[in-house]
């Protein structure tokens, strides 16, 4: 279980003015729960995801993971406790191969067949990709799918995906939906997916709407989704967000 207790995050701009990106957010994610976080661009969604992984440190508040206080833990410690993070913009490396990255993610030596299992889930043929460098020679969509494969390979109790649909073509997107459904149905693991896509929001147990650094609403998809789609006042940004 993940608990965010009164999390705030501020940054200073050039004039030393403090800007509050996240304002006193409290959230709980149960085991095996799948929540989708949505909201307008610049509302604080990605920052929240980074705070959970430890890429950013909160200005105040507490994070608990299965009862352990992880607020001041490093990224590595959180990763080893069982939190995974899929980047919105996958990182490129010179000289690190797809096989290396998936092996590091899986945490043990992988056969080609083993790597194939993870890559085929994201619609890539291992034979074509396994010995390629994770660099600019791969397209944005390919990098994104490899990024998602690393999270599948890690198979941790909590996985956080930051806009997994960005850069993914339609065919892969159908697969992606299946990946998330499978991750949710076949394990006891929890998922947090930041998304603007209606189809991802559709398969989540709950939807959290974040705007202006706060939780605007949270609820079962059947309660939240119609409001988002109908473009009620509280959610009018959804029209801008592409739904």
């Amino acid at each position, binding site marked *: 279980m993940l608990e965010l207790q009164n999390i705030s995050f501020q940054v200073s701009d050039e004039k030393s003015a403090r800007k509050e990106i996240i304002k006193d957010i409290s959230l709980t994610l149960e085991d095996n729960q799948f929540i989708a976080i949505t909201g307008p661009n610049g509302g604080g969604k990605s920052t929240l995801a980074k705070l959970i*992984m430890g*890429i950013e440190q909160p200005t105040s508040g507490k994070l608990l993971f299965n009862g352990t206080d992880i607020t001041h833990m*490093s*990224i*590595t410690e959180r*990763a*080893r406790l069982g939190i*995974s*993070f899929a*980047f919105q913009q*996958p*990182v490129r*490396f*010179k*000289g*690190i*191969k797809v096989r*290396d*990255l998936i092996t*590091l*993610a899986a*945490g043990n030596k992988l056969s080609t067949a083993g790597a194939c299992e993870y890559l085929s889930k994201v619609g890539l043929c291992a034979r074509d990709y396994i010995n390629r460098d994770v660099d600019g020679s791969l397209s944005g969509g390919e990098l994104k799918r490899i990024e998602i494969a*690393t999270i599948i390979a*890690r198979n941790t109790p909590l996985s956080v995906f930051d806009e997994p649909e960005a850069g993914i073509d339609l065919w892969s997107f159908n697969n992606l939906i299946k990946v998330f459904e499978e991750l949710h149905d076949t394990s006891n693991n929890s998922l947090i997916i930041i998304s603007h896509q209606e189809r991802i929001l559709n398969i989540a147990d709950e939807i959290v709407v974040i705007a202006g650094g706060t939780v605007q609403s949270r609820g079962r998809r059947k309660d939240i989704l119609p409001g988002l789609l109908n473009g009620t006042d509280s959610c009018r940004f959804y029209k801008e967000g592409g739904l």
Partner: protein
Amino acid sequence: MDEIQKNLLEQVAGLHEMPSGAFNIRANGQSVGRSTTAHIDIVTKEDKQGIDIIIKPGTKKESVHIPVVLSQSGLTEMVYNDFHVGEDCDVTIVAGCGIHNSGDKDSRHDGIHAFYIGKNSHVKYVEKHYGSGDGSGERIMNPETIVHLAENSFLEMETVQIKGVDSTKRSTSATLADGAKLVVTEKLMTHGKQYAETSFNVDLNGEGSSANVISRAVARDDSRQLFLAKINGNNKCAGHSECDAIIMDHAKISAIPEITANSLDAELIHEAAIGKIAGEQIIKLMTLGLTEAEAEAQIVNGFLK
């Protein structure tokens, strides 16, 4: 050979025992083993230190190992090795130098390798440099490589210097005839107070000749590196040089690429990039459970792989 020399031999040539095929092993200034084949002869020079390696025309799928090891502190040597590769050959040449210096005097090996590669021949040349020993004496290597590529010949040159060499000045020059091709891949890592200088001077004289010089370098601690790559396009040709370097700690790297087109049909490109490891690369690997130090090592190893 003693254990230190055997270890050096393994590091620079990957050899656990005497290799098959032709070889000449030089230890502390003397030849300690030599073998020739029906197609490859090795002859000691009479006027100076060094050997002539003579590869008969049409020699295919054979290899020559000529590693050098120095374990005697204070030894300084200058060696001339000439490779005469006949036409239509396909051979692998493994050179390399390992110095173990546990004394307080500098040990130094200067090797001048000249390649005369015949028409239509393909040569793969691998050269590794390695230093060990905890003496205050420096381990110094200054390799010079001179290459003459005849029509439609091809030299693939791989050089690696990852550990333990205090000072190195590497110079490679090449002339290419019609249709000849040169591909150089250099991997270099310096640490401590080491200094490494590497320079290339390539003359693309022949029509349809091409050269690709690729250097990947990592400088850590207080080490310094200088990369110079000069490519002259004197005909219809293609030349490309690339220096890609990671800088860490207090290290310094300079890259000076130079391309000159003396022909309207010369196509020349140079690329040089120096920078520290991208923070996001370290963060990504940390999210997979690696510590910051492990992530850094993984990135550097991958970069130099």
